[in-house]
């Protein structure tokens, strides 16, 4: 299949997700918009707690109590997923939009055999006999590189290693003959480097094979560089920059994105250096955010305006957007979107 980077299969628009807590309401996702195109890989990066997982769960409609989507739309094809009924949503999940999670060790149900867990999805979404479903499950396990799948399928999850479990998770996410979207939430962070490389390679191969779109959530710029077509950078619940992957690495516009790249020790520029260019300060508490740009307190180019208002989105080149007063000093006057 070909990548069609023009058709948006998923369109998140001005999504706001909140968690009311005793100490106040946390806006985990604050006015985030992005599009995922047919067949492409969009990487969502950002520091821990910036709202990546919550964004993904919002899309799947799987927010944990007490989380709620307070505004925005999530368009899948022509429909707004937020308007879907539970049963409509169920038809999408695991079928059109699948998700795999960070912790392969705990993401499989310990009391069911792999067989049952795999066949369950197949039978749920496809009109197959259980024999056919079983065969399909074995086939899928083979496809994700599990040796002697017909034997392994009878195992319980605890019989498998972490890497194998993650493969099972991937196989389970790809049961549909026509998987539309795969959301992978830090699929390799819990794994060893060598295993991580295997899994990433596997995902890439599968994506090439069946042309699905991948929303890859990660905090590892290395993974982004290796996997992504486009990158959206989040900071404290806000999307602050979005660009084509090469553009993002070569011409990062937001001071945070630049800092992030500079913080990586394997950055070529550190050959022989003995200091990193680190971002100073710490990620702000989501409860104590003001109206302004959340990065202000760590920013080297902060201005007065940064305290007062969150910058609107500016376009650098086609497909490269950034939200920063320093990049787009005039937009405060316009008082809205460019």
């Amino acid at each position, binding site marked *: 299949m070909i990548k069609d980077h023009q058709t948006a299969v998923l369109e998140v628009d001005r999504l706001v997700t909140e968690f009311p807590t005793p100490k106040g309401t946390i806006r985990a996702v604050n006015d985030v918009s992005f599009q995922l195109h047919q067949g492409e890989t969009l990487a969502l990066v950002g520091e821990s707690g910036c709202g990546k997982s919550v964004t993904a769960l919002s899309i799947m409609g799987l927010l944990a109590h007490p989380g709620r989507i307070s505004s925005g739309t999530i368009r899948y094809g022509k429909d707004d997923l937020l308007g879907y009924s539970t049963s409509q949503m169920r038809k999408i*999940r695991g079928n059109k939009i699948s998700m795999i999670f960070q912790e392969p060790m705990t993401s499989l*149900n310990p009391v069911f055999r792999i067989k049952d867990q795999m066949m369950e999805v197949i039978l749920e*979404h496809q009109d197959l006999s259980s024999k056919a479903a079983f065969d399909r499950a074995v086939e899928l396990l083979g496809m994700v590189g599990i040796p002697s799948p017909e034997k392994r399928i009878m195992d319980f999850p605890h019989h498998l290693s972490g890497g194998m479990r993650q493969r099972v998770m991937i196989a389970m996410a790809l049961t549909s003959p026509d998987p539309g979207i795969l959301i992978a939430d830090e699929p390799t962070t819990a794994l060893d480097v060598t295993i991580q490389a295997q899994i990433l390679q596997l995902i890439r191969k599968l994506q090439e094979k069946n042309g699905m779109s991948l929303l890859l959530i990660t905090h590892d710029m290395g993974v982004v560089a290796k996997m992504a077509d486009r990158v959206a950078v989040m900071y404290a619940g806000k999307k602050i920059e979005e660009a084509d992957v090469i553009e993002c690495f070569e011409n990062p516009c937001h001071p945070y994105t630049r800092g992030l790249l500079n913080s990586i020790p394997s950055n070529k520029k550190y050959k022989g250096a003995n200091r990193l260019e680190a971002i100073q300060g710490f990620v702000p508490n989501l409860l104590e955010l003001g109206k302004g740009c959340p990065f202000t307190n760590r920013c080297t180019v902060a201005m007065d305006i940064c305290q007062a208002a969150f910058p609107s989105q500016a376009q650098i080149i086609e497909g490269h957007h950034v939200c920063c007063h320093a990049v787009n000093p005039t937009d405060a006057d316009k008082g809205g979107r460019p």
Partner: protein
Amino acid sequence: MIKYITKRLILLIPTLFGVVTIVFFMMSLAPGDPARLALGAHATPEAVEAMRHELGLDRPLHIQYLNYLKQVAVFDFGKSIKTGEPVLYELLSRFPATIELSVVSIIISTILGILAGIISATRQNSMIDFGAMFAALVGVSMPVFWLALILIMVFSVGLNLFPTGGRINIRLFMDPLTQFYLLDAIVYIFREGDFSYFLSALKHIILPAVALATIPLAVIARVTRSSMLEVVRQDYIRTARAKGLSERTVIYKHALRNALLPVITIIGIEFGYNLAGAVLTEEIFSWPGIGRWLYSAVTARDIPAVQGGVILIAVVFVLVNLAVDIFYAYINPKIRY
């Protein structure tokens, strides 16, 4: 599996040895002279003296202990001072009554408790949840003996729905084959088509079983609920939802299977407590079981009976818990063997 069970049984030996030792020395410390008790109110001092000799109470304590160990090793727990019967026989003859009562009450509490727990968990923070959990908390806070009295006051005296005590209407002259009256009464249904035996046995067991079921019911409901809530938070439940399964399947298949694992342990423990700790309930409902027997042995200071009874009950209790452990291991795929 056999190997595991054997190993667990072997591991029991030190515990049981400890039990026997503790019980023996505790009871030797107890005031009250078994010889005196054996002879009754106005026994002459000479007769008491002779009796002490006969019972071996005039020998040094460590000799008594060694003798006792020797006896216990061959399941000889001595004879009850009060009745002169072997303690083991006395206990076993009361055991069916207690088992029947415990089983009925644990069935009641398991069914209702799990149901209440699931309903509460699936409607977390709703009025139903709040109400059920408050009720469960009241249940665990309930002085059982008081509840028993209130049950009698309301259902037996006030509404005259149930008898006040006993196991069956005595005038029916039922022939107990198994000593489990409900089962025996079923025989009458098949043999003679006579339901009155069964109904009577049922009517007799309901109030005590309900009283005895309160705490296990409340505990099971609470454990089921919290276990369920815990499980629902797990990653694999999120996975199940992400697969597009219906909420029903997610809860009743994926969550419940996992959530019930700890509940089984609790049911076992509560069953063990019921078997051994139904003293108050049996006392109030004149239920001829081991709790009541042991209590009267304690108050009468029938020392061999108390020693033997406590040891045997501890053994039963430990074995029930062991059985539950083994069952748990057996049904839990997370444990390999």
